[in-house]
């Protein structure tokens, strides 16, 4: 009779630790920058430095956390929805869709928006978001609905490859867009302002709430499709709703920060290696873990080569890849990747 309580206690402990880590990292994020680390209360007093903190470092740190949280949540939703531990948020083609949207706007604008894709262009942000959603819609249409997971995955691969190729073709045809395009593909939090943070915060709130409400479906699906249906779960409608959550969360993150690899894949794995929660708590914990991971990576990306900055997407790809490799070796030793 004690084990459900133990599990809940473990999850609560993990959530507390992650929240504390988030707070500490946000403070650190405000202090670390290309001018080197310094005490951030001192910075607040100094006017120019204070402005740097308020207008650049704080919003970008918060943006890194929020984007990571959105990706972590999406990863947990995708892995539960497709019953596949290797599912990641971008597997319905949203990444390539977003890239194509960005490429179209860049080419149309003649590449003049090359400074970034955050505050300069609501156009770019909007194009990335619209592209991500359109790609998911296209995947759904190709798969003829949501009832067949395998068909959805295959359709996602097809849409991803084709849209990705189109995006590459477009930027190849107008070389002046290549730097901006590359910045998007690598992923960066450097250009996100307060408005971007607000957009992501709202998306995160909606996604977490909806995901939590639908979590019994993910629990049921872990038993397999037929069993889930035998338990009376309305699979079709709720799957569609979960896909909407997935599209919204990935779209919001990609639109602000570009393609950031591995956070969505690694965050749920990390949570499951520490605790074994049901789907609801898993979604929350994956969001918190994703936030911590990306914010930590962002701070490291600022610090490693200071005053030069490493694109955070490169860092997460290296760290996430290494983590998964380690997980694979450990999983092989204990009988399969889980």
């Amino acid at each position, binding site marked *: 009779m004690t084990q459900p309580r133990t599990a809940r206690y473990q999850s609560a402990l993990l959530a507390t630790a992650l929240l504390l880590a988030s707070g500490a990292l946000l403070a650190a994020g405000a202090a670390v920058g290309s001018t080197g680390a310094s005490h951030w209360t001192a910075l607040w007093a100094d006017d120019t430095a204070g402005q740097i903190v308020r207008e650049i470092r704080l919003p970008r740190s918060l943006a890194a956390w929020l984007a990571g949280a959105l990706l972590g949540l999406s990863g947990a939703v995708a892995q539960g929805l497709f019953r596949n531990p290797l599912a990641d948020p971008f597997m319905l083609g949203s990444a390539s869709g977003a890239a194509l949207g960005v490429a179209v706007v860049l080419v149309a604008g003649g590449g003049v928006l090359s400074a970034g894709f955050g505050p300069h262009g609501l156009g770019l942000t909007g194009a990335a978001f619209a592209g991500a959603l359109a790609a998911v819609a296209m995947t759904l249409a190709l798969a003829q609905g949501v009832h067949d997971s395998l068909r959805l995955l295959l359709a996602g691969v097809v849409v991803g490859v084709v849209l990705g190729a189109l995006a590459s073709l477009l930027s190849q045809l107008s070389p002046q867009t290549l730097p901006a395009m590359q910045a998007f593909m690598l992923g960066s939090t450097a250009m996100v302002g307060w408005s971007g943070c607000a957009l992501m915060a709202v998306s995160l709130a909606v996604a977490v709430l909806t995901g939590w409400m639908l979590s019994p479906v993910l629990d049921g699906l872990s038993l397999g*499709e037929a*069993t889930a249906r*035998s*338990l009376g779960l309305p699979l079709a409608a709720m799957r569609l709703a979960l896909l909407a959550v997935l599209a919204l969360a990935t779209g919001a993150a990609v639109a602000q920060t570009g393609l950031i690899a591995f956070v969505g894949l690694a965050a749920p794995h990390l949570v499951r290696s520490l605790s074994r929660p049901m789907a609801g708590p898993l979604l929350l914990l994956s969001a918190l873990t994703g936030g911590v991971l990306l914010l930590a990576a962002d701070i490291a990306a600022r610090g490693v080569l200071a005053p030069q900055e490493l694109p955070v997407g490169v860092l997460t790809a290296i760290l996430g890849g290494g983590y998964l490799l380690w997980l694979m070796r450990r999983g092989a030793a204990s009988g399969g990747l889980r």
Partner: protein
Amino acid sequence: MTALAGRPSAICARGLRVRLGGVEILHGVDLALPTGRWTAVVGPNGAGKSTLLRGLAGLVASSGAVELLGRPLADWRGRERGRRLAWLGQVEVPSGDLRTYDLVMLGRLPHLAWLASPGPVDHAVVEQALRATQAWDWRDRPVGQLSGGERQRVLLARALAVQADVLLMDEPLGNLDPPHQADWLALVRQQVAQGRTVVTVLHELTMALGADALVIVAGGSVRWHGACEDPATHRALEQVFEQRIRIHPLEGQWVALPR
């Protein structure tokens, strides 16, 4: 067809047809399975046994009529049906991350309000189910760390935790060793004694002959439906397996041996 007349049907199918990938697997099956009895579905590989069971449970698209407890299957609301009919699938492997206890608790989903925490009754039912399948000792372990046979017992406990009137099981003996097969048999007998209806697809003919009634499926239709002790049922079984088996009495039960 010496069907066990006189009892109301737990599940009744008329003209049940199922097409999978453009191929008709079931060609209009008529079948009435009595309540409070254990019915075993047997037949050669690819005969459509599993498809029949899925059709009876309403888990595949089908045409024709299926009634559950006297009411058309389509008229049942999802959760309501989920409380009355439990399903144990053949090939479904659960994701390995859930704890055994939490997984079995998922059997209580149709009984719980949406997002509600399980109450004392649910915990008691889950404990009872885990103890009934001797899986209580691993309640804290993740399902992914269990062996195939252990996992099968946990999945059986999950199905029992639904406490449904009708229990459909596809190949429930997979990976179970002989002592646990005997335990499973006792468990099914106990469920039937409590008035529940059990329908199983079985490959082990000797186990199937321990049921109350046998449904023999071949080529997508029902070839025979009769009591297990009926010699005519034995003849039908031998015939459907092309006289490659023979049924003998041994120590008060029937045994199917190859010849």
